[in-house]
C-alpha cells in the first residue's frame, strides 16, 4: 500500500517538475524569438513586400468573416439585453449595454478568436510543414533567416491588421445591435444613441483598440513559435496546430481577464 502511494506521489511531483520545465522552455524560446523579431525590425531586415502580402492575407481577407461574426454578436447582445431588462429599466439603457459590451469585450475578444482560427492555425500549420519538410533548414542553408522573412512580416501584419479589424467589428456590432433593438424592442436609433452617450467614455475606444493590438501581437507570436518547434511529420503538424489553437485561445482569454484591473481603474 505505502509504496503505491509513494509511487503516485513521485509521479505527481515528477509531472509537476516536467510541466514547469516545459513551460520554462517555452517561455525562454518565446522570449528569444520576440527579441530576434525586434532586432530584425530595427535592422530593417524585414522585406516590405512580404509585410504587405501578409496584411492582405491575414487582414483584408479576414474582413468578411469578422463582419459576419460581429454582426451576429450585435444582434445577440441586443436581444439578450432586451430580454433581461424587460420593463425593469428604461429602454434607452439598451444603447449603452450594446455599445459598451461590443466595444469593451465582444468586439476585440470574438474577433481575436476568429483570427486564432483563421490566421493563427494557418500560420502554425504553414511553418510547421516547412519545419518538418526541412524547408526551414533549407532557408538557413541559403543564408536567409526565417525570423526575418517568415516570422517578422506575419507579426507586423497582424499587429497592424488587428486594431483595424476590431474597429470594423465594433462599428458593425453596434449597428446590427441598434437595428435589432429597433425591430424587437421598437427602440429608435436616437434613443439608442442617447443611451449610449450617457455612459460613454472616449477612453473606451482606445481600450478596445489597445486590446486588439495586444491580441494582434500575441496570436502570431504563439503561432510562429509553435510552428517552428514542430516535429514528427504530418501527424506532428496536426498535433502542434491543435496545441497552438488551444494555447492562443487561452492566452486571449487570460489577457482579456487581465485588462480591466490593469486599464479600467
Amino acid at each position: 500500500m505505502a509504496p503505491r502511494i509513494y509511487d503516485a506521489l513521485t509521479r505527481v511531483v515528477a509531472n509537476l517538475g516536467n510541466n514547469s520545465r516545459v513551460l520554462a522552455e517555452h517561455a525562454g524560446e518565446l522570449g528569444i524569438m520576440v527579441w530576434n523579431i525586434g532586432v530584425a525590425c530595427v535592422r530593417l531586415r524585414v522585406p516590405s513586400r512580404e509585410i504587405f502580402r501578409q496584411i492582405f492575407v491575414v487582414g483584408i481577407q479576414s474582413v468578411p468573416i469578422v463582419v459576419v461574426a460581429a454582426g451576429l454578436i450585435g444582434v445577440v447582445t441586443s436581444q439578450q439585453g432586451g430580454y433581461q431588462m424587460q420593463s425593469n429599466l428604461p429602454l434607452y439603457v439598451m444603447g449603452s449595454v450594446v455599445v459598451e459590451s461590443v466595444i469593451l469585450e465582444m468586439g476585440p475578444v470574438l474577433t481575436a478568436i476568429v483570427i486564432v482560427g483563421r490566421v493563427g492555425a494557418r500560420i502554425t500549420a504553414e511553418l510547421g510543414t516547412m519545419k518538418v519538410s526541412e524547408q526551414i533548414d533549407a532557408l538557413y542553408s541559403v543564408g536567409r533567416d526565417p525570423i526575418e522573412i517568415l516570422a517578422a512580416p506575419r507579426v507586423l501584419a497582424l499587429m497592424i491588421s488587428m486594431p483595424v479589424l476590431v474597429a470594423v467589428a465594433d462599428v458593425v456590432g453596434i449597428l446590427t445591435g441598434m437595428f435589432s433593438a429597433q425591430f424587437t424592442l421598437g427602440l429608435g436609433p436616437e434613443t439608442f444613441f442617447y443611451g449610449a452617450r450617457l455612459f460613454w467614455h472616449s477612453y473606451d475606444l482606445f481600450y478596445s483598440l489597445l486590446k486588439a493590438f495586444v491580441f494582434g501581437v500575441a496570436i502570431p507570436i504563439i503561432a510562429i513559435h509553435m510552428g517552428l518547434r514542430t516535429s514528427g511529420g504530418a501527424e506532428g503538424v496536426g498535433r502542434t496546430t491543435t496545441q497552438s489553437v488551444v494555447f492562443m485561445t487561452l492566452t486571449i482569454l487570460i489577457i482579456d481577464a487581465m485588462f480591466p484591473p490593469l486599464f479600467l481603474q
Partner: protein
Amino acid sequence: MSRHSNGSEPVIEYLDVFKAFDTPVLSGVNLSVQKGEMFAIFGPSGTGKSVLLKTTMALIIPDRGDVRVAGDSVYFGGRRSLEKIRDNIGYVFQYAALFDSLTVFENVKMGISENILRDMSRIDVERQAWESLELVNLEPGQVLGKLPAELSGGMKKRVGIARAIAGRPEILLWDEPTTGLDPVNTAAIERLIRRLSHELDTTSLLVTHDVEGGLDMCDRVAMLEGGKIRFSGTPEAFNMSDDPVVRAFADRAAAIAALDVLEVR
C-alpha cells in the same frame, strides 16, 4: 596521393562532435576535409550522416565539440562569421527540401546569397539560374515556371542541387545526391561533382550509399559507424581494409557476412 599538391589545407574540420537526441548519435566525430577534395562518407542507415552534415552549417547544433570551416569556428565565431560560412557552403538536402510555395526559378534564385543578388541584374540572375538547371541535366525552359509539386522526385532532387550550386559556393555538402536517380542522371550528377571540383576547385563532401561510385570518384572516403569515424583514408586503403564493417560496404558477399557483426535482425 591527391591531385592537389597544396592539399594540406583543411577546409572542413569536425572537432570531437557530440550529438544525442533520445539516444547518442554522434559520439566524438573527428574528421577533416582538404581544400578541393572530393570526400565521401559511407555508413549504415541511421548512423547520423545527415546529422553530421547539418552540423557543418549549424542546422543542427552539436551538444559538444566544434566545426571549423576554412579555419573559422561555426559555433564560437559569432553571427557574422556564421553568415559568411553559410554563404560559402551549398547544401544538397537528402529529400530536396524545395520551398514549395516558390517556383523552380525562385527556388534556384534563393541559392544566391542576398549580398550578391543585390548587385546582380535580372538578366544575370536568370542566366545563372538557367545555367544551374542545365548543369543538373534539366531543361530550364520547361521547369523554370513550375512549382515543386509538379515535379517528379528525381527532378526535385536535381532542382535542389541546382539551388545549392546557384551561388557557386566554394564548398558543397551533398546528402545522397544520386539516390533515387536513374543511371543517366546519376552519371550526370557525378560528372557535375567532378567538374565543379576540377574547374572551380570546389570542395565536395558527400554522403552516399553508392559505395562504388564514391570509391571511384573521391580522393578520400570515410566510414561513420556507431557515432564515430571507423575508417578514413584513400579508396585503395578502403578496399584493402580488413575491418568487417568496412568490408561489408566494399563488397556484397561481405555485407551478408556482416549481418551478424552489425547485429541486423
